[in-house]
């Protein structure tokens, strides 16, 4: 959930940059510095954090108070490549997201930092996904030491695999 939040925050920040750029295109000098400032703060903390969302406020106010703009500089800020998000702690370790902006659009979202204290590190999602029967861990009844199944009644136990296993180990 946090990862998704981080990614959506990153996307939101990028959207904010675009909004700043567009408003910058309509407004004048100070407006363009506001847009540039928004881009600067975003490049520092990027997608995940609140600094990104302070961007729109400043560029918005700049846009409302001024009347001429420099589309060139604002445009340059928006296409300035990659923005790193803040590191977020998740159950799978620390995750940091980086977005790549080209020509005012996000072209890539990558995970920058994935560390963990155990071997699950590269695995961001533990979601259950469709899996073919042939692709699950296989086990022959002759190899297992115990059987897990939906609760076996006492009557059903006698003909169950666990019953057979126990009988063999008496």
């Amino acid at each position, binding site marked *: 959930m946090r990862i998704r939040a981080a990614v959506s925050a990153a996307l939101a920040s990028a959207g904010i940059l675009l909004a700043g750029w567009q408003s910058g295109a309509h407004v004048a000098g100070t407006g363009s510095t506001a847009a540039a400032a928004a881009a600067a703060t975003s490049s520092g903390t990027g997608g995940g954090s609140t600094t990104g969302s302070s961007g729109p406020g400043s560029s918005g106010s700049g846009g409302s108070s001024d009347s001429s703009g420099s589309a060139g500089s604002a445009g340059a800020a928006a296409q300035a490549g990659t923005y790193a998000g803040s590191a977020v702690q998740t159950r799978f370790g620390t995750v940091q997201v980086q977005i790549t902006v080209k020509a005012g659009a996000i072209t890539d979202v990558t995970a920058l930092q994935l560390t963990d204290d155990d071997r699950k590190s590269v695995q961001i999602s533990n979601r259950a996904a469709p899996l073919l029967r042939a692709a699950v861990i296989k086990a022959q009844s002759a190899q297992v030491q115990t059987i897990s199944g939906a609760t076996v009644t006492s009557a059903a136990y006698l003909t169950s695999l666990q019953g057979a296993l126990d009988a*063999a180990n008496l």
Partner: protein
Amino acid sequence: MQPTFRPSPAEYPAHSASNLRAPALKSRTFQCMGTVISLALPAGATLDDGQVLEGATAAVERVFSGLDAMFSLYRSDSEASQLARGEVTLREASAPFRARFADATGWGLLTEGFFTPERPDGVLDLSGIIKGYAIDQAAAALQATGVEDWCLNAGGDVLVSGSPAPGTGSPWLAGLVDPLDRGALLSGFPLGGTGRFAALATSGTAERGDHIWRAGAGRTEFRRSEFRQASVAGLDIVTADVLATAIVAGGRPMLNWATDSWDIEVLAVLGSGELLATPGFRA
């Protein structure tokens, strides 16, 4: 109760003494809580392993029968039955009873009501948590007797310690019943040894019919579940057992909530027989 059914060695060749691949085990069973509980220990670990197994089984049985006497709704003299008849109120119930009620209520909150200690008819039924709790308490009793390598199976819910081949670190291998053919295994999962998970619980509609009711969104009712069976491997048996029940009751939203929120591996079987699995179940 000892099963009267004995398979012939020809039917299960790997369990005969001649096969060296399968670790030799000794097991004892008894009947409680409407099911059969099996305790298996590595054979030949000590000279008196027969006695050790008898003592360990007795310790486990004491735990189970003590809890069954208090929580079974099938015993008219149990505290649970007295409560169901309205002879006592929850406020007057014993401290252990109220503690389990608190556990179950807490799990109800953590699973958004998909695990619930209340039957659709409003009767308080803690049996959904008691078997897992009994396994957990039995583990403590086994630890107290000094047995380190064991596998405890209560009606399909499994908790292990150590290894079937003591000292090797090799895990116990648990088979998962195929709900479409309960004489066959759908999958396997390693427990204990040097691995992370010690507990494996399976809930489903295959063995006892639709005994799990769907709850949530203010409704409690019987409804056919999206999942036929859900197996959960976890660090402890109560978590695995409760989440397996909740996933069958709650379907995919609960499955995703569980895998996002707890350190577990899940293999779920849909009504159509298709599988949903976390990476840990991938071969």
